[in-house]
């Protein structure tokens, strides 16, 4: 059961989420998603295309950000639309700490009685990594 319509008002903030992304996470996501682009696991390949180091899959960042919304919504099936722009790559160093990504979200619009739009922010190293990130959630 998704979050009830009576429980949600415009301006509500979602509980924040912090995720540490390591090289091992990138390898695991590559396997699960089928995206084996070497820029996500091989420094040489990343540098060859002008990147400073290995970067996280944009789709992993998008998936991590979705957890903020699905956890709040109570039912992942209630997310009827989910859109992001990838504005800056997340560089993942080859160490145990990896990169720390912080997510926050806010209900910004009520489309109709049973539907709201959540705006999401994702930051890493004090910079935004996702732009125009929104999820449309159906309330019960």
């Amino acid at each position, binding site marked *: 059961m998704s979050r009830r319509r009576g429980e949600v008002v415009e301006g509500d903030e979602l509980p924040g989420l912090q995720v540490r992304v390591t090289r091992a996470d990138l390898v695991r*996501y590559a396997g*699960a*998603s089928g995206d084996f*682009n070497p820029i996500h696991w091989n420094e040489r390949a990343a540098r060859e295309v002008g990147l400073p180091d290995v970067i996280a899959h*944009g789709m*992993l960042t998008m*998936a991590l950000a*979705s957890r903020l919304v699905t956890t709040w919504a109570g039912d992942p099936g209630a997310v009827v*639309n989910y859109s992001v722009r*990838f504005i800056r790559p997340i560089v993942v160093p080859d160490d145990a700490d990896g990169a720390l990504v912080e997510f926050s979200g806010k209900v910004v619009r009520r489309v109709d009685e049973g539907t709201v739009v959540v705006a999401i922010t994702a930051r890493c190293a004090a910079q935004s990594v996702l732009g125009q990130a929104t999820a449309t959630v159906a309330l019960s």
Partner: protein
Amino acid sequence: MALDPSFVGRCFPVPGTYQVAREKIREFADAIGDNDEIYRDPGVAQACGYRDVIAPPTFAIILAFRGQQALVCDPELGLDYHRMVHGNQSFTHHRPIRAGDELVATLHVDGVRTMGGNDMLTVRCEITDSAGDPVTTALSMLVFRHSAAEQDR
């Protein structure tokens, strides 16, 4: 090399059908660090009104990505996968993807433009069930960065 605008309208069917397995959903949920039991326990999913476990909102990228591979591998388009950057992504879920679904996907090229030394392709992956009913529409903007040598010209 700028992309040929005549690419707009081309379709790239993802070969075969994609059988959604419970274990693949679990693997994907593990990979994104999401421990929600609705991705793992059919009983929990059924209590939420679903026939079987459902997939996370970005799971459909597996199919969209296969379509993109077909696009990038087409020699006529002459795209360089290593210069590809993902610009934006959206998913519209007509219904959640569930374990047991047999999905069929086709990638459509909706737009081509060149801006700031980059080629940009807007592609749309339409995912349906085996009956042809819509499940997910995945829109992606793919950016192909020109090489430094090309930009110097």
